[in-house]
């Protein structure tokens, strides 16, 4: 009985000790873990990672500013590596802040590049609009000149036909005058002839006495 009881007690105490050891180990390990968990990476590192991921996902940034984006990526990576190697919170905070600004720099570079493209395109468009306006102006001027020319031509033609008519009339007038003069002359001659030799004087000399 005694030996059996002793055996049982010994077993129980052994089990108790085992339990204590297990608990102790677990507690100890969790304490160590807690000790490690104070070395969580600073918030800034996560923020920098997220900022970079967002910029990378933005096609404007990734296509317009690939070089600046790669620099930002390198900056984030340097912060991560420093954290992995040194666990220096303040150093990593600083590196992460720099990395965040590098992401901002990539965004600004993308805006700049886009604006440059816009300026180039708008400059070309402005040239085109100016050229169109100038062409239209020239066309308008030419049309006006043509209209003026047509009017001048018409006026000249009118003047010419008027002149022709005038000269025709003048000719006609001259002809009429000449005819009239000739008729007058003929009439005058006839009259003188009639006075000089009246018909009843032809036969005798009495006419002379009458004179």
């Amino acid at each position, binding site marked *: 009985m005694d030996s059996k009881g002793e055996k049982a007690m010994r077993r129980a105490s052994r089990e108790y000790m085992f339990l204590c050891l297990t608990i102790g180990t677990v507690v100890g390990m969790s304490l160590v873990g807690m000790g490690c968990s104070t070395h969580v990476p600073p918030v800034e590192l996560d923020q920098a990672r997220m900022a970079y991921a967002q910029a990378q996902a933005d096609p404007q940034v990734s296509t317009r500013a690939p070089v600046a984006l790669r620099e930002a990526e390198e900056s984030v990576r340097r912060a991560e590596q420093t954290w992995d190697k040194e666990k220096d919170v*303040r*150093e990593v905070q*600083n*590196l992460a*802040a*720099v990395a965040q*600004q*590098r992401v*901002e*720099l990539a965004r*600004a*570079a993308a*805006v*700049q590049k886009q*604006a*440059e493209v*816009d*300026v180039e395109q*708008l*400059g070309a*468009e*402005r040239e085109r*609009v*100016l050229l*169109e*306006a100038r062409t*239209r102006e020239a066309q*308008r001027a030419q049309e006006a000149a043509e209209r003026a020319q047509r009017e001048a031509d018409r006026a000249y033609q009118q003047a010419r036909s008027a002149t022709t008519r005038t000269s025709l009339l003048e000719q006609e007038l001259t002809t009429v005058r000449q005819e009239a003069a000739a008729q007058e002359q003929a009439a005058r001659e006839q009259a003188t002839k009639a006075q000089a030799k009246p018909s009843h004087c032809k036969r005798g000399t009495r006419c002379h006495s009458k004179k």
Partner: protein
Amino acid sequence: MASKQAVIQLLLLCGAMGLSSCAGTPPTATLSQADLAVQQASKSKAPEYASLELYMAREQLTSAQEAMKHKEYTQARRLAERALVNAQLAETKAQAEQTRRTAEELRQSIETLRSEAAQQASRRQ
């Protein structure tokens, strides 16, 4: 005797550690780089279009120079790194803003030309 030696060794170790924490090589190159970047940004349109970033860069540079005076080289280097990137950001932001405004002016000028042309066309009709 042995304990005395241990104390001396400990003191030496502490001194070395103390020295290494504040000494090291002064970050002269980083500081002059930051200084140059701030000067360059000040000459650009940054005071007008990116005043906040430029202000931050200037503040950080001043703090970095202060830290250098006190031989806090690690702090000086960190501040100079921040000042450098902020100065670069200020300059790029200002440049982008300026280009964006040029584009806007061009857009308006095209608009004016087009409306003038439309007015002339309607006047002739």
